């Protein structure tokens, strides 16, 4: 996993959930990160799209299982 991309994704998480000290791990899911739920999920997705200048498909945003998968997906899209 690209370390730099991971840190950038983490910075987006911090911005969306308004927690400057938030630390994410590759195995984290929505259950592990306070505030990350279905209500905020698409806001997070949109912020990632803006930050990385990518576009996700619906299938992609509903199929990743944890933040590790999400970072891999972002890495694929930007490369």
């Amino acid at each position, binding site marked *: 996993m690209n370390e730099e991309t991971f840190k950038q994704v983490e910075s987006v998480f911090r911005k969306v959930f308004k*927690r400057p000290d938030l630390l994410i791990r590759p195995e984290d899911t929505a259950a592990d990160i306070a505030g990350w739920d279905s209500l905020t999920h698409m806001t997070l997705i949109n912020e990632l799209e803006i930050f990385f200048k990518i576009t996700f498909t619906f299938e992609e945003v509903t199929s990743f299982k944890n933040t590790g998968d999400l970072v891999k997906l972002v890495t694929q899209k930007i490369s």
Partner: protein
Amino acid sequence: MAFCSPQFLIFFILVCGLNFVLKNPVRKYLLLFASLVFIGWFNLYTLGAVVFFSGFTFIIAARVTGDKNAFIFYFGLLVNCLAIVLFNYLLASDGLVIFSLNAVDFSVNALLLLVGLSFYNLQHVAYLVDVRRKRIPPEKNFLDFLLISAYFPKFISGPLTLYQQLRPQINWPAPQQINLGQGFNRMVLGFFKKMVLADRLAPSVASVFDYNDELPGITVMSAAILFTIQLYFDFSGYSDIAIGASKMLGIDLPENFDFPLRARSVTEFWRKWHRSLIHFFTTYIFYPVSFRYRRYKKHAAAIAVILTFFVSALWHGIGFTFMMWALCHMVYLLFELYVGNTSGASPGRLKRLVSAALILILVSFSNIFFRSTSSAACMHLLSRLFNFDFFPENWAVEVLAPIAVGGHQADLFNLVATFFFLCLTVLFERKIFEYASTSRFRPVITFLFILLIFVFGVFGNSQRFIYMQF
């Protein structure tokens, strides 16, 4: 046949026994036959409807993969959705039809199965959408498809199961001993929750909701809270029985509840309550809408919340009360969306308790609409809740007697017994769930639970004493 009936117990023992000894594909056909018998036991018209909708959806799905035949796809969705709306309309109008379906039986048993059909058609909607989006290939074997659709443990009350959750399992070998123990424990817990907790609370709730008494606000609110608890134990009890029965047959159904009474926000509540239905609404309505308008960020989620709950209200029933119930939750969720705190700091025990109590009150308030027998009854209850008589002059007569369904010592004793079991279950819910999910069969605990069901469970015809002269 209802789960809590001797007929079902005999039926299930037979099916379970045969299922244990048979091998696939005979085992599959046994489950299919048993499912059709289960549905047909209520009435044959419902069985006919189930077979019809299964056949219809099966044929449609074979033709709509990818971008092919958009018209056929939408037609298939429309028919399944109309079926849900139509049956709910029939329920709302007490069986008065706008057109005749020829000899459709509107007896109590038929109405019960019409509720089952709401779940059933929803599963077909999910199936068609998933086939269309190429998430799953269309089923080629109609009997397999019919089994997955009509599978009897989940038919009446869910859990709402997606095609892809069951498909891999129907060809599994027969269940192991481990499944029998786990499944049985789970079923016993389900019967306990339903008969000892939910059904004992039902008369207390009915005593407040079903009469036009001038009761103080605190009585109305107490009954609303009791209704929420009753609904939880009733529904989760049914789910436990369904999941347990299915486990004994070797098939895993998804969990439906995750201790929702401990939720500290309405958002969290909806992650823990009726999870299978919420998963459906999230996957097929909420996420598509919020994804499409994601550039509007929170507003996209707000639009999706409104639409999802509107559809949920229609699914539950057609009427003012369900719309008002949905409106309450829209307001709660939108408030949390725009004002909520995502600090992530772990709150203290007292704060957790206060939060959970507040959420219970908010959800219970919305359930006043959900439970009310009519708009007029609902308005009456709300007027009692919001006038100056919130607290009573005489607590024994205006609060205790309605909740205890009488003012005699025996009534108070029954109320105390009910609250005792309720408190114990809520306090030790996680431990009890662990026991019920354990693979090891525990004879002593099981024996005690069944004994409690006999001594404190509600068996008789609950309508027997509805009319009381005084």
